[in-house]
């Protein structure tokens, strides 16, 4: 059995959990005045966590994107497309959902190879 390594582990959640060459990054939220800005910040946060896990966005396997308003899909996507490693996008699902606080408009969780 391979070990489990946790990154920024708190009493309730870890920012990321690594097992068997795969890192699971918990849903990342951000402040920001627009979906564009929040998406940019969220993706920067994911970059930082992936780096700490010893990997990067070119190794993404799967992503789940939650938007509080599905009408902002294109706005999120424009930032996402500019960010994603060309030729290396993950499998993805995008859904509308309520998020933690009223100001939050986008949340993204990812799984990546380490």
């Amino acid at each position: 059995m391979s070990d489990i390594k946790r990154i920024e582990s708190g009493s309730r959640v870890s920012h990321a959990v690594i097992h068997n060459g795969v890192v699971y990054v918990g849903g990342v939220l951000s402040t920001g005045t627009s979906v564009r800005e929040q998406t940019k910040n969220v993706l920067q946060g994911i970059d930082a966590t992936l780096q700490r896990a010893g990997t990067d966005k070119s190794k993404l396997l799967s992503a789940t994107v939650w938007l509080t308003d599905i009408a902002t899909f294109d706005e999120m996507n424009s930032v996402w497309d500019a960010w994603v490693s060309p030729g290396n996008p993950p499998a993805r699902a995008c859904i509308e959902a309520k998020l933690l606080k009223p100001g939050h408009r986008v949340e993204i969780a990812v799984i990546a190879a380490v």
Partner: protein
Amino acid sequence: MAEVERIGAGPHLSHVAIHAGVVHVSGVVSPGSSVREQTQNVLAGIDELLRGAGSDKARILMATVWLTDMRHYQEMDGAWEAWLPAGNAPARACIEAKLSLLDFSVAIAVTAAQ
């Protein structure tokens, strides 16, 4: 590090990402005149993606089902059960959510062993 293989990589997502013997499939939607028909078409699409990845529906580990209206649960579930090979049901979660493509009532994402 195990390689990441991608199938159907576009600007936003890959239909499938494969790593370390695990197949990650994007959320799949499909047209159809009813939730039952949409579900059948989504599952046929998942069959095809899994086949392309060297896996099949008997090897699904986890599935997430999103319905735009939870009242359609039984209809989706009937098509799901008819599709699944007996004795090979994956872990599954089903949630009500708005989808990014407004014409669709059901989306399903799966993770499978190769």
